[in-house]
Structure formats: structure tokens, C-alpha cells
């Protein structure tokens, strides 16, 4: 309560002293934000790879897969959480169900597009040299689809980081916590802090994925004087 009075009465728009005195809380919420994002992307990627492989192996299943993941993507996040809370409660599980379902459309589509975009000559020569289906997938198709898959992952990551702030409503929101409490207390510093941190996390994660992509796909670089 003292915190609230103290905050609301201050005329300054942004109070750095409040930030300095709450560094521990900020670090904790940023950590939580990254964890929620990481779990969502990890689980989302695993499910998407499985769905994409089914779609690639049995082409007839691909339209229904995109239809369902597309439908999930269109559900407003608030509505989804409101629907899930009575079933799974105010838990991390509730947040993750929502977050994961929003990654599926982008990831499935990019994995399939990445694999389908491989040069047919590469595919033919791999088969002609005696690759079996499984090794072809893991040694040739997925590695070559990596740039497209990672491009999808970057979009999914930025989307997820934004959505995590919404999950503050059900008690697990990373830096969304600051936005929510700031709004409740009319405390601008927290609202601004939450928003800026969310943007910074998105930028930082995106840059990390760019670096990861460069490291994982050295063949796409053109530094050593191509002829």
C-alpha cells in the first residue's frame, strides 16, 4: 500500500529510482518471460515438426493441418485464456497452451515450405546415391530447410514474446506483470518499464536467432570469394 501511494503521488513520468530499487523483481520477471517464451517455442517447434512431417509424408493431411492451426491462430488470446482458465486454472499450463497454439501455424508452414523448397536436383541425387527416407530427412532435407525454418522461428518468437505479456492476466506474465500492476495503480513507470522490456526482449531474442542462424547455416554465407 505504501508503494502504491508513493507511486501514484509522484509527478514525474518515469522514476529511475523505482527501477533501481526493484532490480531483483525486474530480473525475475525477465527470466520468467524468457522461460515462458522458450517453453512455448520449444514445445511449438516439436509439435510443428511432427505435424509438418505428417503433412509432407501424407500430402492429403496437409490442408486440414493448416486449417486447424490457422483456426487456432485466429482465436483472440484473451478469449482463449478465458476459455482455458475454468479447465486448467491460473497455471503455467494455461499460458503455454495458448502460447504454443499461436506458434503452430507459422512454424508448420515454414517447415513444409522449407523442405518443399529444396532443389529437386539435390533430392534426386540424394535418392540416387542411396539415401533412405529417414536419413534423407535428417541429413539433407531438414538441414537445407533450416534457413526457412529459422525465419519462421524468428516470427514466432517475436509474436510469442508479445503474447506473454497478455498472460499476466492469468498470473504468469513475465514483464507483462509490470504493465498490469502499473495499469491497476496508475503508475506510469511500471507501464513504460513493462512495455520497453518486452520490446527489448523481442529485439534481443531476434538478434540471438539471427546469430544462431548464421552459425547453423555457414553454407549460405558468401565470404570466401565465390567463383
Amino acid at each position, binding site marked *: 500500500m505504501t508503494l502504491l501511494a508513493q507511486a501514484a503521488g509522484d509527478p514525474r513520468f518515469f522514476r529511475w529510482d523505482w527501477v533501481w530499487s526493484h532490480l531483483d523483481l525486474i530480473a525475475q520477471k525477465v527470466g520468467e518471460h524468457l522461460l515462458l517464451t522458450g517453453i512455448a517455442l520449444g514445445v511449438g517447434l516439436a509439435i510443428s515438426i511432427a505435424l509438418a512431417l505428417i503433412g509432407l509424408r501424407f500430402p492429403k493431411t496437409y490442408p486440414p493441418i493448416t486449417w486447424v492451426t490457422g483456426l487456432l491462430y485466429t482465436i483472440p488470446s484473451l478469449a482463449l485464456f478465458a476459455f482455458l482458465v475454468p479447465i486448467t486454472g491460473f497455471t503455467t499450463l494455461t499460458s503455454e497452451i495458448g502460447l504454443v497454439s499461436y506458434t503452430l501455424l507459422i512454424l508448420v508452414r515454414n517447415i513444409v515450405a522449407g523442405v518443399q523448397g529444396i532443389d529437386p536436383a539435390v533430392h534426386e541425387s540424394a535418392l540416387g*546415391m542411396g539415401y533412405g527416407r529417414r536419413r534423407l530427412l535428417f541429413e539433407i532435407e531438414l538441414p537445407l530447410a533450416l534457413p526457412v525454418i529459422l525465419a519462421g522461428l524468428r516470427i514466432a518468437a517475436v509474436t510469442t514474446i508479445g503474447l506473454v505479456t497478455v498472460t499476466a492476466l492469468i498470473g504468469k506474465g513475465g514483464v507483462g506483470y509490470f504493465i498490469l500492476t502499473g495499469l491497476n495503480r496508475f503508475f506510469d513507470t511500471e507501464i513504460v518499464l513493462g512495455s520497453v522490456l518486452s520490446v527489448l526482449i523481442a529485439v534481443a531474442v531476434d538478434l540471438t536467432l539471427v546469430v544462431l542462424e548464421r552459425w547453423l547455416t555457414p553454407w549460405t554465407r558468401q565470404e570466401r570469394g565465390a567463383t
Partner: protein
Amino acid sequence: MPETMIRLEAVTKVFPGSDVAAVGNLSLEVAGGEIAVLVGPSGCGKTTTLKMINRLVEPTSGTITVAGEDIMSVPAHELRRRIGYVIQQIGLFPHRTIADNIATVPRLLGWDRARIDQRVDELFTLVDLDPTMCNRYPRELSGGQRQRAGVARALAADPPVLLMDEPFGAVDPIIRSRLQDELLDLQRRLHKTIVLVTHDIDEAIKLGDRVAILNIGGVLEQYGPPAEILRDPASPFVEDFLGSDRGIKRLSLMPIRDVALEPGPVVAAGSDSEAARAVMDRYGVDWFGILRGEQLAGWAWASELDDTPIATIEPKPFMVRLGLDDSLRDALDTVITSHTRVAPVFDGDRFAGMLTAEAISRELAR
């Protein structure tokens, strides 16, 4: 004829959704250690035929055996690891270095690291690929280098059979000609059984020990050594496909070595002008060659004879010297471009004789 390595018996392929056969009732034998070239217009099923040998396309009916074994009796991936495969676009794996690309089949076969490394080194030398390329990615190589890497990759596990689908189709004509020569050179050392598909009849004639000319629908019009096909086309289709310069093409397959050479209008440097005039009369020319021992020093015009002894005439050199391994096509080219209308032939340094247009056309008529 050496033992048959690949045998196609009454092979037919009808693609799903099609009424007509892409390849119809085709029978063909490829002898071990030979290059068989499948050539024909597009739609003749030559690529389909090739792909049936490594089961990238499965025949609708008929049997194919490789080294006496029915290809349907082994799992497709095992069969393919024993058959080298090179396609026009090469299809190197963009995400792997050249060394790793070449190591593909040995890795699939589970060779150990040291053996793979040693084999990759050997292959770089074999196909004449710069060893500094080994850590490059395919996109960093030129077309010719990629083609060599593709051949090295196909040869990696030393398969007895090599299938090549338009292997030189994607490189420019100068590089293509060089790569063709390299393939022939490689084949002289390795004695693989090669089936090569092309739409280029000149490439077929140059590379093939035997050429199979296919018509639309995979109908075999003629199968035999290129010289035989050129001399004796089996059908109007073959004749048409060979083109109007069939005679010239045949000449390119005939080495000068196989032709009886005439001495030509030559005299020894010590002879008198009467001897020179006599030899010019016999050949009906107005010039004569001058021999010093076994060396052909050059030639001079009849008008230079006058009364001076031949020994004091400064002979003009022959611009082109042909060897016994050059073809009659080279000889014809020399004949029609030189002042003297003959092609002097040398066996090393020794003057072996001369070829005239008449002699060349006599050879064609034989």
C-alpha cells in the same frame, strides 16, 4: 565382347495416368567396361530408361539385371549405393563441403573416418580437383569444378557401374569438350561400365563405345558402335537424327593410322629438277615437298625450280603437322585450308606420308 554388365529385357514403363508407354518393350545389353550412350530426341524415354537401372523409376514390366542380379531382388537404397549417379544439375548438397559431398556414399556404407579421408584425397587427384577446394561449399565452385566434384562423388565407393544423365549439359561448350576428354581419360584408367544419356549426337559419337538411338516411346532404332551406325544407319529416323554431315562425323572416328598413306609429291634434297618435275606430273600439282633423310624439310613451287639445284632452294614449312592418332576429320580440315591441298602426316619426327581429299573420300567409300 566382354561379359554383359547391364541387361534390360523387354522393359516397359507406363507412367500412371498415361495411356502411352514412355519406354516400350526395350531390350539392351551393356558390356562390362564399356560406355553405352542413350541418345534421342526429347520424349524418347532415354532418361526414364537410365533411371530404371537404379530404380529411381520402377519398370512396369520386364526385367533389368546388373552384374547378373535382378535389381528388384535388392532393396533400392542398397542397389543405388553400388551404382554411381551423375545428373545434369549435379545436385551437390549445398550445406556440405566438397569433401563431405564426395564422402557421401562411403558414409552411407559406414566406412571408418580414416578410410573415407584417404579415399576423398584419392578422388581429388583422380578428377583433377584442386585440394584447396575440399572445405569449400558447392556454391563457391565454378560449373566445371562442380561437375568434377559430382563425378568424384559418384565414384567415391568405386562402383562398377556409373549412370550419367546429361552430365555435361549445364557447362559451356569449351568446358564441356574438356570434361568429355577427361571422362574418356578417366575411363581408360578405371574401366567402369557407364550408361550415359545425352540429346547431343556429337557427344554420343565422341564418348560412346556403343550408341543406342531411341525413338519416341523408348523404341530402340539402332544399337552399335558409332562408326557402324554412321556407316550404316538402320532406318530413315537414324539417318535423319545423325544429320546431314554424317560423312564428316564418320571421319572424326577414323584415325589416320588406319589409312594407307601415299608418299605424295616429294623428292630427296639431293635429286635433280627432272625428278621433281616427274613427281609433280604424276600427282598433277605445281609444288613439291623436299625430304632431307626422313625429315620433311618443307615445300617449294614448281616455278622456283628453274635450273637451280633443289638443295639450294629454301623450303617453305608445312603449317600443320598431323600425327597418326589424329582423325581423318583433322586431315580434311588441313587439306581444305592449306596452300598445297594435302595434309602431311608425321610419326613422331619421321615423315609418314600425305593425305589428299581424294584419299580421304576413298576411305569413306570403303
